[in-house]
């Protein structure tokens, strides 16, 4: 029998097979539209013949004919996935036995796009893959081969399913486009970091392109991972000739190119579309001569999202704002399930210069685990940067790491035994990086030496279960100097000492000034001192301009960034500052700014008005009339959609400024009732819904945005929990109107008696009534009119 583990360990050459589908089609006339997996049942001998053809030319591992044999796809053909997979394994085993070759359970993509771009839930994807793995493993597969993945998130679901439902080795290959990314935008670095972290046994590329085009991708993977690399490319690029797809490379040319890959150390070789046994035979000959064991890359400290990798080789800013501690509005947003508020903060932080975002949603009275899952999933849909999962509950951390797409940081583990025991294994399982806090059962030590000792202990414990040193970051903890003036220096000394261990350091900054006046000055000076002491990852507010200036100038002075970078960053802001604002009297000015949708100057205009008027008066006599004008301009066609929205956003900013300035400004709508807006289950179109939200908010209504593809239960629960003005549902397509109807039925069944307003391109008044809605709104302004009507 082929010794896979030994071969992988010694990095010996392993030959896989080539194309399966075309060979099957040549031998068996399947009726049009039927899946090739069905041949496992219709003609086992045909499948065995194809396997045999590859085994004869020296394949050590063959893939079962189960590319699309998941329950979803098989069901759509009226087939039982269990029967298909079982017979496929039997066929492969029957063929491989006499060669002593291994049988890999082949798993391809599910055929549905995963959230956030699609509507298939990560958890559902996991379950579908798990079914395949369990059947395959029971039937005697020797390894699991996950292939042709273009979504790292889907690949992650498959890997978790493979590892949690079997003990078999797992290989993964992804499929890349000409731009060296997958269709979903994943790059080689993020893939290598994430999959290696999850503990796969080998990874690489297959399909879509030929060996020449895939060379740069493999080179990138080789720089990033020490795992054995796999190449199973197509026979060059496809082209259509006489309405048939043909591939440009002949077997010798293919083999020569595969030899080049072997020479750079790619050790697991095979072919995909357009490759026949002859291709594999010649590849084997070429590779055996050319193969060289590659020099393994040096590990780096790095983290990633699904599409972006960050090397921690310069100061990187962790945005601190996704955290309810001490923030009333944030707490309210969490209580109300208002994810939009959090997403807005995320985008603001990234725009402000955050390299990654800390995510903390712990708040008494909410289910932290459920909320963490919702927030992490939502964040992944709007920002590309990596995330830091901030919780001390192992269950919350595990839930977040499970559904996180990429390699995250976990904040944090401490030197306490219980913390080490419960958190480090989770870090290891999901391949995350971890922040170690230098405290233990005795609290936070008063000396730098003691904090260093705890850091050493955390590092040792992490390494003992296989977490690499590069993935352990240390937070030496900032305490306020109001309690003891020595606190700052102890922390800084500890940071310097930790750098001797060659570990990356993390530090929250603002605690240092707690209880003192002019906190910002202290914070900023402390930040500068900490950076100079070796701080790599400051946790700060990236929207505080002066703080970011310190980071950016530090990067310049420490040669972490070129001066060109610095100039590019600040050249623009000088320009913006020097722009003069037109002169008008204040009232006219406010109205002018709102009607023309101009953000700049709005706060100055309000400040001037606030000298003589109170906030409520400004709202009632200036803001609302300006808004009404905008509304009527829009309805009469004097302005068009982008102008309506611009105005809405400016007046929303004005409301927020007044609220911030005067404390609790009563909203122009004194009614405390809420409005829910949501795009219904199955539909991912949310622009219309978002426009309605902005315009409603801007009239002072309080809106809870539940997002798109919204679970019916979430809508029902939120409607039940709050005092509702109305529930607003949006659907763009005729097909998702059914979900809208189901949502309405569920709301009514739950006892909700309030108004339901529906909107969307394919709806009309009659249909809205037919499905039980109270109102149909044709656009955002119509929704405002309905809302006003409901107030009375």
């Amino acid at each position, binding site marked *: 029998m082929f010794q896979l583990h030994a071969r992988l360990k010694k990095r010996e050459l392993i030959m896989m097979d080539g194309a399966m589908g075309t060979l099957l089609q040549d031998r068996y006339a399947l*009726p*049009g*539209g*039927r899946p090739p997996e069905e041949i496992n049942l219709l003609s086992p001998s045909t499948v065995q013949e194809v396997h045999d053809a590859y085994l004869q030319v020296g394949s050590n591992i063959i893939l079962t004919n189960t590319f699309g044999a998941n329950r979803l796809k098989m069901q759509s053909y009226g087939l039982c996935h269990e029967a298909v997979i079982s017979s496929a394994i039997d066929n492969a085993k029957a063929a491989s036995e006499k060669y002593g070759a291994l049988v890999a359970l082949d798993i391809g*993509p599910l*055929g*549905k*796009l995963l959230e*956030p*771009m*699609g*509507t*298939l839930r990560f958890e559902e994807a996991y379950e579908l893959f798990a079914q395949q793995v369990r059947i395959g493993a029971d039937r005697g597969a020797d390894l699991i081969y996950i292939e*042709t993945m273009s979504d790292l998130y889907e690949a992650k679901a498959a890997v978790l399913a493979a590892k949690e439902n079997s003990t078999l080795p797992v290989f993964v290959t992804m*499929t890349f*486009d*000409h731009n060296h990314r*997958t*269709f*979903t*935008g994943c790059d080689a670095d993020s893939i290598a970091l994430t999959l290696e972290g999850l503990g796969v046994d080998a990874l690489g590329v297959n*399909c879509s392109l030929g060996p020449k085009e895939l060379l740069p991708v493999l080179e990138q993977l080789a720089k990033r991972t020490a795992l054995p690399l796999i190449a199973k490319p197509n026979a060059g690029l*496809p082209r*259509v000739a006489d*309405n048939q797809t043909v591939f440009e490379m002949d077997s010798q040319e293919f083999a020569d190119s595969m030899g080049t890959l072997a020479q750079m150390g790619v050790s697991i070789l095979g072919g995909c579309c357009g490759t026949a046994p002859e291709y594999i035979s010649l590849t084997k000959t070429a590779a055996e001569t050319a193969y060289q064991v590659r020099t393994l890359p040096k590990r780096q400290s790095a983290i990633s999202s699904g599409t972006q990798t960050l090397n921690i080789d310069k100061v990187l800013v962790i945005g601190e704002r996704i955290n309810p501690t001490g923030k009333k509005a944030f707490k309210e947003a969490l209580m109300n399930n208002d994810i*939009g508020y959090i*997403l*807005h903060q*995320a*985008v*603001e932080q990234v725009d402000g210069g955050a390299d990654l975002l800390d995510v903390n949603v712990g708040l008494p009275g909410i289910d932290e685990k459920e909320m963490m899952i919702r927030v992490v999933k939502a964040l992944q849909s*709007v*920002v*590309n940067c990596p995330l830091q999962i901030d919780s001390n509950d192992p269950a919350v951390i595990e839930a977040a790491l499970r559904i996180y797409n990429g390699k995250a940081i976990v904040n944090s583990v401490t030197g306490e035994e219980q913390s080490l025991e419960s958190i480090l294994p989770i870090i290891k399982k999901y391949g995350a990086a971890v922040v170690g806090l230098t405290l233990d059962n005795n609290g936070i030590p008063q000396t730098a030496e003691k904090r260093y000792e705890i850091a050493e202990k955390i590092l040792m414990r992490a390494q003992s279960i296989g977490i690499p040193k590069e993935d352990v970051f240390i937070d030496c903890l900032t305490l306020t100097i109001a309690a003891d003036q020595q606190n700052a220096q102890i922390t800084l000394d500890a940071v310097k000492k930790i750098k001797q261990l060659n570990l990356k350091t993390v530090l929250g900054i603002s605690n240092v000034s707690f209880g003192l006046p002019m906190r910002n000055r202290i914070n900023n000076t402390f930040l500068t001192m900490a950076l100079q002491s070796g701080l790599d990852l400051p946790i700060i507010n990236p929207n505080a301009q002066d703080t970011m200036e310190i980071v950016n100038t530090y990067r310049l002075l420490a040669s972490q960034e070129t001066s060109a970078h610095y100039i590019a960053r600040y050249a623009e802001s000088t320009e913006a500052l020097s722009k003069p604002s037109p002169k008008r009297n204040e009232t006219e000015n406010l109205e002018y700014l709102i009607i*023309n*949708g*101009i953000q700049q100057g709005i706060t100055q205009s309000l400040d001037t008005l606030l000298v003589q008027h109170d906030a409520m008066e400004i709202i009632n006599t200036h803001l609302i009339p300006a808004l009404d004008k905008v509304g009527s301009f829009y309805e009469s066609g*004097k*302005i*068009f*959609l*982008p102008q309506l*929205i*611009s105005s*809405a956003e400016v007046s929303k900013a004005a409301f927020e400024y007044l609220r911030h300035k005067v404390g609790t400004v009563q909203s122009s709508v004194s009614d405390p009732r809420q409005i829910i807006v949501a795009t219904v289950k*199955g*539909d*991912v*179109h*949310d*622009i219309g819904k*978002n*426009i309605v939200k*902005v315009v409603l908010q801007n009239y002072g209504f309080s809106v809870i945005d539940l997002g798109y593809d919204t679970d019916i239960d979430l809508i029902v629960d939120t409607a039940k929990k709050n005092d509702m003005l109305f529930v607003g549902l949006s659907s763009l*397509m*005729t*097909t*998702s109107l059914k979900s809208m109807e189901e949502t309405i039925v569920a709301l009514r069944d739950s006892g909700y008696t309030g108004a339901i307003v529906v909107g969307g*391109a*394919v709806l009309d008044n009659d249909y809205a009534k037919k499905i039980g809605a109270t109102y149909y709104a044709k656009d955002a302004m119509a929704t405002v009119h309905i809302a006003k009507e409901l107030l009375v």
Partner: protein
Amino acid sequence: MIYLLDYSISKADVLAHLGYNNQEISDTLNQKIDACIALSYERIVPAFTYQIFSVHPSLHGIEIENTSLTIDSYDLKQLLCYSKEAILLALTAGVGIEQAIRTQSYRDMTSCVILDSCASVATENIAEALQQQIKQTLSEKNLSITNRFSCGYGDFSLHYQKDLLQLLHAEKKIGLHANEFGILQPKKSITAVIGIVDKQIRHRYYAACSNCAAKEDCAYQKEGKTCFNYMQD
């Protein structure tokens, strides 16, 4: 799969898509539109695939030969009444632009709406460019094409979206999917059927407005136009 498509996003098209009707546009808005067009070019990664199939009329629609697919659609039958073969095509602007639009909605709703329009215009133009390319290739064989007809037009149900993608292996080739509601993912994508006809036949077929899902609130109809007027082919 092939990236030789030359498409453009004209400001006039974007404005039209946004419902522009000669309103005065401020410098700020103008700059936003320009920035959105630039961002669209940056984030759109067009990909397409198409294949020619033999077709013949069935009782209620069209049968695609050598496949198990029969499409029940009177409208499609009309489109293909002079065709022995038809092109099935699928194309997408990709996931990058989709994420950009989503992100923009939490940054600046105005830009978000504009960017969404840019992406729609771009997707339409990618389809146009592809159609021209196909037309040129067929012209050498003395053949021409009908107009493009997509799921959701007339009585051509959105439920066929999945079948079309499956026949074209669009999931694997260009990363295009449809969910159980027939909604394409990524959203800025098009699938369509185009009839192949003899060169001298100029056959166009558009579903009757009375059949259209948007008939109640159609911007074109209000102006006495139809949505297919602008197809200058």
